[in-house]
């Protein structure tokens, strides 16, 4: 059932992903594992464009029927774009967490922060550890 963890991006311990767009920005979302834990996502509080966040600072909030979870910024920087479709269709995160369910784009302050994140293999190993 679980989706393949894409190898083209980086992962945090808090289950966010960051895709390096190669232009100084990263696209950010939450992982398949995270959306599975949350189940039916019914609301996403998006950041304002232009907001400046530090690495692992709260970037957005996703809510399921029962729970409220922070989404942390995998890297610090300025929010240059947000996925406005999530306002009407928060379930995109459940249905396509690595694609149409992206949350925001951040212009990186310090691209070297990416090095502190995990790759797909490392993230999958962490999940496997957690479930034991």
């Amino acid at each position, binding site marked *: 059932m679980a989706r393949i963890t894409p190898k083209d991006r980086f992962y945090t311990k808090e289950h966010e992903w960051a895709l390096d767009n190669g232009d100084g920005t990263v696209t950010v979302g939450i992982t398949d594992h995270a959306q599975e834990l949350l*189940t*039916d996502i*019914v*609301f996403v*509080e998006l950041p304002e464009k232009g907001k400046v966040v530090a690495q692992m600072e709260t970037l957005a909030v996703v809510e399921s*029927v*029962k729970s*409220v979870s922070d989404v942390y910024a995998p890297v610090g920087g300025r929010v240059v774009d947000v996925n406005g479709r999530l*306002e009407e269709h928060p379930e995109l995160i459940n249905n396509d967490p690595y694609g149409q369910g992206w949350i925001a784009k951040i212009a990186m302050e310090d691209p070297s922060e990416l090095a502190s994140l995990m790759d797909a293999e490392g993230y999958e190993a962490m999940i496997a550890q957690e479930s034991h």
Partner: protein
Amino acid sequence: MKKTPLYERHIALGGRIIDFGGWAMPVQYDTVMAEHERTRQAAGLFDTCHMGEVEIRGEGAFSFLQRVLTRDLADQRPGQMRLSLMTNERGGILDDLTVYMLSGDRYLIVTNAATKDKDLQWLLKIRDEGGFGDVVIEDVTATTGKVDLQGPKAEEILQVLVPHYLHTLKFYHFLETTILGMPALVSRSGYTGEDGFEIYVPAEGIGRVWDRLLQVGGDYGLKAAGLGARDTLRLEAGLMLYGNELDEDVIPFEVVYGWITNLEKDFVGRDALRRRYEKGVERKLAGFICRGRGIARKGHGVMKDGREVGVVTSGTYSPTLGKAIGLAFVPPGLAVSGTVLDIVVRQNVIPAQVVDLPFYRRKRQYYFFNLFI
């Protein structure tokens, strides 16, 4: 954590277990949304073994209950159940519970899970003050198994297992019957706003009843449902939850429970409640629907004209309405349908409109929901 006799079945069904008042209970098996919608459209089966059951019997049983409960039970007949409150000397709500009249001198009261031990101590304390004649108070929680079968298909499903004709069983009435050869008590009642039943059998047989109901009910769309859906269903139905809306600092008139509080009768807390009634309440529970983007949750502040005026007691996304709904304590003047309030959700302030309860009322009703409980 304490486990109900159905715990292993929850694990086998993939239930996610949480601590609910000291009990290891399934919050969901599938998703809250799916279990909620299934219960509204077909049926859901809930483990409610964690709830407390206390038998009150003896010649003084009736006068004892009249003393500890806010509701006048004089018109209750065997086979009927009543919703009531138990209050302390200050009139604060110790618990909301249901009372089954089994016979003239035998009652079963069903309490919340987290309040059961406290209730029991309170009942023993009042009994020992004397004046009721012979009253036996017996905690039968451990030997009683309980499940709630809820939803428009509940009657058809349960009828397969029960020899008595269920269609004529009225809301908040019960019958003593048999299920799978075991003695069973079945009431038409529940906590979801749907038609449905609360089913009691000996604890050692509840697993078999659970399995059989899921097996029979499969054809009708029945599946197990967890506490997550139980909470969203009860909130849509405008039903209160002890620990959220109700506690020892809340009095019945603040939560529109005046209708089950009879000040003409002598019960513990009556005098205090009379004074509070004459003085008027300073806050009232109001239902609201969020008009802005965001979901109000328990503990969020309520503002009016820039001033903090109250607090949210329960809040969720309503699967049926597709909107965020909630209950909040606000000054009585604001607890009026149409009033616009502001809810403080993190750093945002979102508008919400006070509405009449319930948020959801099922279409086909056997009996008028609010009149008979």
